């Protein structure tokens, strides 16, 4: 039993039905994400931010999620590389920079998480941690609740192919299959888990090969092709809404950067391989497709580029000017405010800091 191809899976060419303004909106989002991502790399090299982890090269399959889900209704548990997805679902460049700089108004975590650990509850983007694949069975739980409540919503999660080695991944898909849940798991298969290549991660061609074992279809498609990615994702969403159960999506994609700003991929990745992958960069592929369809002129492309760069500049300036959290805010938000737990946490102090009087004064009266 092998995974399905895109054509075996889809029942309609959904991408062909996207109106021109939707395609242009999608393209602008991809451009915005790319330029924002590149800006973060520059800021890191300049020593102005501490960390960055990139989505460059994977934007087509990610953007397809943002276009296929209904923001604020469907649930999404992002992968840490999903910058364009969260932008499509309603986060802003300012939100991203506030998190990158660790500022108080960072909507993802108020400065507590590292950058790229997205959360925006109003848009049903669920807060993610760094441990991998933990979100998969949680996503099954959300899907179970959707089913129980009789809603036409979808619960979707994304992760890298490396994370499919975790037990949590198996456990989540098992639940989704047993209960035929409105659940979608997207594996963004870029063939590297930091340095570990796919053939040291699994003995099969990709995670979708395993879908049969969970009682759901597994679909492999070109994750650098926006149209193919949209068709696959949209079909999975329609299946879930129809009550036809879960889908395992495997987008074959390319990580065109090191794992993160802390990594040096020259120690494990052949440069020729990377150069070949750059020929499949999803952004020029998408741009070219819109140009050749007559939807996008070079002049319009340049105007959009200038527009997104201005938007990024403005967001960066605003985030830089924003306030840091107060140090004592470290103690807030562990428990609900003014509860017994909250009071216990806030009572913390280091010894010596706790006692404003000098010990001599404090014990002057007859110890």
């Amino acid at each position, binding site marked *: 039993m092998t995974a399905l191809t895109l054509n075996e899976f889809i029942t309609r060419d959904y991408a062909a039905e996207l109106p021109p303004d939707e395609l242009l909106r999608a393209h602008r989002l991809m451009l915005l994400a790319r330029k924002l991502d590149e800006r973060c790399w520059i800021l890191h090299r300049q020593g102005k931010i*501490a*960390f960055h982890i990139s989505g460059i090269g994977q934007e087509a399959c990610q953007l397809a999620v943002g276009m296929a889900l209904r923001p604020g209704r469907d649930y999404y548990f992002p992968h840490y590389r999903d910058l364009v997805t969260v932008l499509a679902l309603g986060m802003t460049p300012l939100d991203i920079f506030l998190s990158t700089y*660790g*500022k*108080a108004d*960072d909507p993802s*975590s*108020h*400065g*507590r*998480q*590292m*950058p790229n*650990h997205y959360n925006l509850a109003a848009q049903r983007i669920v807060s993610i*941690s*760094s*441990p*991998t694949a933990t979100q998969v069975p949680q996503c099954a739980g959300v899907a179970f609740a959707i089913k129980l409540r009789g809603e036409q919503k979808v619960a979707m999660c994304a992760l890298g192919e*490396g*994370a499919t*080695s*975790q*037990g*949590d991944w198996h456990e989540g898909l098992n639940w989704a299959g047993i209960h035929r849940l409105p659940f979608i798991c997207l594996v963004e298969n870029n063939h590297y*888990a*930091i*340095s*570990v290549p796919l053939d*040291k*991660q*699994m003995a099969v061609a990709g995670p979708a090969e395993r879908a049969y074992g969970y009682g759901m279809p597994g679909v492999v498609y070109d994750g650098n092709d926006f149209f193919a990615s949209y068709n696959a994702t949209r079909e999975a969403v329609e299946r879930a809404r129809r009550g036809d159960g879960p889908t395992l999506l495997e987008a074959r994609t390319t990580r065109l950067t090191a794992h993160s700003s*802390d*990594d040096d991929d020259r*120690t*494990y990745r052949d440069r020729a391989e990377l150069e070949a992958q750059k020929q499949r960069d999803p952004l020029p592929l998408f741009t070219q497709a819109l140009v050749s369809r007559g939807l996008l002129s070079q002049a319009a492309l340049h105007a959009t580029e200038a527009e997104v760069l201005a938007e990024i500049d403005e967001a960066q300036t605003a985030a830089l000017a924003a306030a*840091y*959290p*107060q*140090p*004592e*805010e*470290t*103690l807030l938000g*562990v428990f609900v405010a003014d509860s017994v737990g909250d009071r*216990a*946490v806030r009572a*913390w102090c*280091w*010894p*010596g*800091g706790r*006692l404003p009087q*000098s*010990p*001599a004064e404090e*014990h002057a009266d007859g110890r």
Partner: protein
Amino acid sequence: MAVKNILETIRDTMAEEMRRDPQIVVTGEDVGPRGGVFRATQGLYAEFGPDRVIDSPLSESSIIAVGIGMALHGLRPICEIQFADFIYPAMNQIVSEVALMRYRSQGAWTCPLVIRAPYGGGIGGGLYHSQSIEATFAHFPGLYVVAPATPYDAKGLLRAALQSADPVLFLENKKTYRLVKGEVPDTPYVVPIGRADIKRPGRDLSVFCYGMMLHECLKAAEQLAAEHIEVEVVDLRTIAPLDKATILDSVARTSKALIVHEDNQSFGVGAEVAALLAAEAFDDLDAPVLRYGAPDVPGVPFSLPLQSFFMPDAARIAQSMRWLAQY
């Protein structure tokens, strides 16, 4: 004798021991051609090959469980957990299996593996790349927990761990990795598990610490020396089991005790040392036993002002020392 940092020392010690003992294998995420995300296994793959330096799938539970199996059949695995924060998927394998194998089989089966785990905060790692896990695992008998703070101790304790009949959780403080340098003898030697070390003698009060906090405490002790307060700084080195004799002997001489750790303040190593002193040093004490641990929040925040507030530092440790000295 070469001057090395802790990272180089751990790498060289693993290489030396792997040359000596062909049963030693290393497994973990990115330990192969990449040489580990901190470079702790750099060069090992080239020297010992893919059968002894094994890139694991991204699955911490399997890293420990496969290590158990290897140890059951005579290998001596070094299992690397990339960040201590990621050890929890392996909790069941460690707590239910590693720590219990000898006890439940009356010694018929043992799994003397070494679990290396980089831990600790103050490095901009946020909630999931900064955690301290020592108290959690020290709670489970059957597992040694060690936390060297100097290159010399890192080599000696790693060699002791590799010779141990029982499993060892070997905690490596990330902030000390490149920051702390020292002389490391080329000759093989062992720092025994279960022995603390007085890193700075003093008569006025005792401070018990380990990992990066040793270096913050030494800095604070230096400040207090200028104020004519002589602080004894004791590096616990082994968290479980505690070196009770060294702790009690120090407090017998100084009569005052402070425990410092970057793990959360409550239910931690500080509480254990304080309980020991309450029970067995009551007559020696001239002041309350104090502990300075990080706030009881569930992770080290990323934002710099929050991280600075969270992490114990020399200035605030010195304040705690002064308070105790003046008592």
